[in-house]
C-alpha cells in the first residue's frame, strides 16, 4: 500500500484540473454574452438556441464525442483548416480535449448565468441605460455583480463537470499519458488492469475534492442570499 502511494502518479489529476481550468475560463467568456442574449431576447430563435445549448445534458457522451471526432479530425474541413494554417491538430491531443470540453460543459455555464440574468430587476437594468451606460458596462458593473451566487455556481459546476467527464474525453483524446490521460480515464484503466488499490485512491481523491468544491459553493450561496436578500431591492 505504502509502495503504491509512493509511486502514485499525479499527472492525471494535474491534467484534469488544467483541462477544467482552461475550459472554465474559455466558457465563461463565451457564455456571458450568450446567456445575456438569451435572458434579454424576445426573438423566436430563443427556444431553438436554448435547446441546442442544452443538448450535451441529454446526449450520450459517445454521440457528442463521435460528432466532435468526425468534425475535427484531419480528414474534416475544420480539422484540415486548423492543421494547415495554424499547425494545430484538434483530436487525440490536449487542444482537442479543450475544444470537446467546451461543447460538453456549455450548458452548465450558460444555464445558471441565464437564470441569474433573468432574475434581475428589469427596472434596475433600465436605470443603468437611462444613466447613459451601454450594454457592456451594464453587464459588467450592474448585472454580474448582482448575480454573484449564479456566477459562482456556473464557474464551479462547469469546472467540476469538466473534471468529471469521461466518455467524450476518451473518444476525442484517447489515453495518451501526460497529454490526454485525465483522472477519470486513468481510473478506468486501473480497473481494466485490475489495479484496485490505485483505482481506490484515485476515486477517493475525486470524491473528496468534488464534495469539498460543492460544499463551498452551497456555503457561499447561502451567505450571499442572506446578505442580498433576493435580487429585487
Amino acid at each position, binding site marked *: 500500500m505504502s509502495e503504491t502511494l509512493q509511486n502514485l502518479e499525479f499527472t492525471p489529476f494535474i491534467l484534469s484540473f488544467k483541462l477544467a481550468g482552461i475550459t472554465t475560463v474559455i466558457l465563461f467568456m463565451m457564455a456571458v454574452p450568450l446567456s445575456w442574449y438569451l435572458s434579454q431576447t424576445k426573438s423566436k430563435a430563443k427556444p431553438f438556441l436554448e435547446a441546442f445549448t442544452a443538448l450535451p445534458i441529454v446526449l450520450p457522451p459517445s454521440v457528442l464525442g463521435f460528432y466532435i471526432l468526425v468534425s475535427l479530425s484531419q480528414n474534416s474541413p475544420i480539422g484540415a483548416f486548423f492543421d494547415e494554417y495554424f499547425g494545430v491538430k484538434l483530436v487525440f491531443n490536449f487542444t482537442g480535449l479543450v475544444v470537446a470540453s467546451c461543447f460538453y460543459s456549455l450548458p452548465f455555464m450558460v444555464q445558471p448565468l441565464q437564470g441569474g440574468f433573468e432574475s434581475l430587476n428589469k427596472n434596475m437594468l433600465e436605470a443603468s441605460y437611462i*444613466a*447613459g451606460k451601454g450594454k457592456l458596462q451594464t453587464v459588467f458593473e450592474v448585472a454580474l*455583480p448582482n448575480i454573484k451566487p449564479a456566477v459562482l455556481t456556473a464557474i464551479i459546476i462547469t469546472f467540476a463537470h469538466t473534471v468529471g467527464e469521461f466518455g467524450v474525453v476518451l473518444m476525442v483524446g484517447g489515453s495518451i499519458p501526460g497529454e490526454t490521460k485525465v483522472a477519470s480515464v486513468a481510473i478506468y484503466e486501473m480497473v481494466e488492469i485490475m489495479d484496485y488499490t490505485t483505482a481506490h485512491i484515485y476515486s477517493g481523491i475525486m470524491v473528496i475534492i468534488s464534495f469539498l468544491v460543492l460544499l463551498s459553493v452551497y456555503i457561499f450561496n447561502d451567505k450571499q442570499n442572506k446578505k*442580498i436578500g433576493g435580487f429585487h431591492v
Partner: protein
Amino acid sequence: MIHIDIHKKLHGSNGNMNLDVNLTINEGDFLALAGQSGSGKTTLLRILAGLEISNGTLKIGDEIWQDEKFSLAPQKRGIGFVFQDYALFPNMTVEENLHFVNKDKALAKHLLELTELSSLKNRVPTTLSGGQKQRVSLCRALMNRPKILLMDEPLSALDPTMRTKLQNEISTLHKEFGTTTIMVSHDPSEIYRLASRVVVLNQGKIISDGTPKEVLLKTSGSQKFSFDGELLDIVKVDVIYVAIVAIGQQLVEVVVDDTQAKSLIIGDSVTISTKAFAPIILPHEK
C-alpha cells in the same frame, strides 16, 4: 418646450386600445399624469425615456428624440427616471449609486444633503427603509442634471407620513433645479401639492387637461363639497338606514332613506355631497 405626438397600439388587461397623446409641455413645468390603471400612463413615460417604441414624434427644445425614421437611444436622452420600486443598484453604496450616473462629487454631496441622506452615504440599499431608498432614487435621477425628470408613481409604496415628507423634498428639488417633471400619480392631494398641471388619461386618450384646481375639485353647480367613495354596507337602524362609505382611507356613515337604500348597490362608487350648510374645518390634533 416639449412636443409629444405619439401613437401606439397597446394590448392591455382591458383589451386592445390605442395610445394617442398630443401634448405640449413648457420648460420647468411640473406635470402630473393621472388616470385609471391600464390607461397608458406608464407606457407614455417609458416612450419618453426611450424604453419602448412607438409611432410619432418627440421634440425636446430643438432636439428631436423621435420621428418617423429615428429614435434616440435612452442612453443619449439625458433624462432622470424614478421607478416605483426604486430600482437601485444593490451592489453599490448610496454614494456609488449616485456616482454611477455621474462622477460630479459636489452635486452628489449637495443632493444627499438636501435629502438628509449624508449620514447614510456608505450604506447599501438593502439596509435602507422604503422612504430612504426612494430618496436615493430621486437623487440618482437628478445626478445627470436631466432635461426631463420622469417619475412613475414614486411614492405609492410609502406610508402617508413618509409620502408627505418626500412630497416636500420633491418640491424643494423642483424649485432648486427647475427640472421639467412628469409624474404619474393617483393621489389627488399629492398632485395638488406638487403639480402645476394635470393631464388625465383614459383608454389611451387625454380626457382632461388643466390646473389641479380645475381638474381635481369635483364640486360643480351649487354643491359646497363632495367626495367620491365606495359604498361598503347599508345597515338598518330602527326606522332609518345608515350607509357606510369608504372615502380614501376613512369610513363615514351617512343617513339614507328607505327608497335610497333600496336603489343603492353595495360596492358601487358613490358621491357624497352637501350644500345645506357651510362645512367647518377643524385641524387634526397632532
